């Protein structure tokens, strides 16, 4: 049981780390630090860097929260039958 707790927590931390890495890349990376080179690429009428800053990052945030929630629900089931 003690061991279970520890692996549950470390798997959770690993998921959080992956999600926060993506969270950082889509907003601060693509929307801010790399905005100039990305703006050379077009997405319809949008410059790609501008699109990430004003649209794309928000869609990615949404995907992240739901993906993390689904993964954690599975993890909860795996480690705690009552979860």
């Amino acid at each position, binding site marked *: 049981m003690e061991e279970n*707790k520890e692996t*549950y*927590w470390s798997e*959770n931390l690993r998921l*959080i780390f992956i*999600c*926060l890495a993506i*969270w950082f890349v889509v*907003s*601060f990376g693509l*929307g*801010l*630090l790399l*905005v*100039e080179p990305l*703006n050379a690429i077009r*997405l*319809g*009428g*949008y*410059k790609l860097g*501008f*699109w990430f*800053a*004003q*649209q794309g*990052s*928000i*869609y990615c*945030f*949404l995907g*992240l*929260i*739901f993906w*993390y*929630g689904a993964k*954690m*629900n599975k993890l*909860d089931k795996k480690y*705690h039958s*009552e*979860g």
Partner: protein
Amino acid sequence: MEELKLYTYIAVFGTFALYFAIAWWARAGSTSDFYVAGGGITPLQNGMAIGADWMSAASFISMAGMIAFMGYGGSVFLMGWTGGYVLLALLLAPYMRKHGKFTVPEFIFDRYYSKAARVVAVACLIIASLTYIIGQMKGVGVAFSRFLEVDYALGLYIGMFVVWVYAVLGGMKGITYTQIAQYVVMIFAYTIPAVFISLQLTGNPIPQLGLGSTLADGSGMYLLDKLDLVVTDLGFKEYTTANLGGTVNMFAYTISLMIGTAGLPHVIMRFFTVPSVQAARASAGYALVCIALLYTVAPAVGAMARLNLMNTIEPTAGQNLEYAERPQWFKDWEKTGLLKYEDKNGDGKIQYTADPATNEMVKVDRDIMVLANPAIANLPNWVIALVAAGGLAAALSTAAGLLLAISSSISHDLMKGILTPDMSEKNELLAGRVVMTIAIIVSGYLGLNPPGFAAGTVALAFGLAASSIFPALMMGIFSKKMSGKAAVAGMVSGIGVTMLYVFQHKGIMFIPGTSFLGDMGKDWFFGISPNAFGSVGALVNFAVAFAVLKVTGPAPAHIQEMVEHMRIPGTVSAAHDH
């Protein structure tokens, strides 16, 4: 004009009647109902309520206007105010829900076993929430005075009364259900005009796609390219690349808004209302869906409003609008003083340029963009009436959430938790209602007599939340060893650094003339504006806390066990007292 007024009265008072009916149906019978709606709200309901709670008059009225004039620089608000929900969902909400208490200061008290920490948290919460409410109260007054042409003060009293009825009667339960209704009103009021305008300009009814489409005027040009061309021709910065004070400042600003969002107590509180840890994670997702519906439309509203404004004043390059032929909405907004024209070269035409020497649009208030947008685009009167009701819904729903955060921190944390621990539940409920009534009166008074620092309040609220509350909560969950002493030292130094920076550049308590370093970009630390400094405060908070922890030793074993327990969802009981 008469028809518009009639529609507006119907929309505004119709929605008020709806809020009252909901409040009566969902009135609170226990402290659990009053603080956390009995813990029985579903994730989708909670998501909508969080959306209404979070999206204030600033989101509804001001944000698209700021984006319209800042262009790409306005992205800090879009990313900052949405990215915070990722932090909430991953780092705070599930664990705080598992712990199962009523308020944020109570969580801090349990985790840091310190009354001092609880009092510091209550102080941060009250300052952040009160400054925030002033803005909502002003929004209510302004919406009434512009749309219904009643006195600003009378509008404010009506708004205070409406909030009082459903917040005091229903507590969290009443507030939650009215917020769901307010979310629906708000989102229709925001998106319907945007759909119409996107359709007019690009032929695409979905504003998020319209913004990336070609114009419907037959030129085949992309909307954003056209906007870039129009604004740079007049000497303004290019719309899609205009920066906000440099990359470092935008970076720090976005971080501050993100962690400030995740640390605002009135939002965190809402996660105590759902039945389980899983539901807390899910409601963060639904909340962001509800918020993203407005936030992804806002850039389209901003860009299209700017283009419409430019096209009205200068229909084709070099062919400027005659002042005598200006449209009705132009005259209406001139009356309010938020739009001002001055014929500098005496040609009777309107020149709108970036150069202050030749620019004749001497004042274009950012806040009018959302409110004037339907009129600029010649939309029907019922759409304009809907926008009025939507603006009021945004202001009232946020005010109610903030009032609840204030009253619970006083009645539950200060009175029940510290001063009179043997208070009965019935008396605590009564105290909560009395405190909320007082808070409404105080915030109404501040709305009528805004203190000199009202303009700087955003910096203050987000700075406090980002530099004190967020780091304390995060360390409490992710560092088992973090001790009470270390956390209090971190919070106090985080707030200290942030406030010192804001005050030294904006004046002590924002009183003009008392700023000792001047509000000048060149004096800013690495070019970081005072609004963006919460991120630095948070770093200081973390650094000090871990340094003190190293010197004074870890938290006692029973606290570390409590943190272990918090991290495992298991079966969760409804939020309870002790």
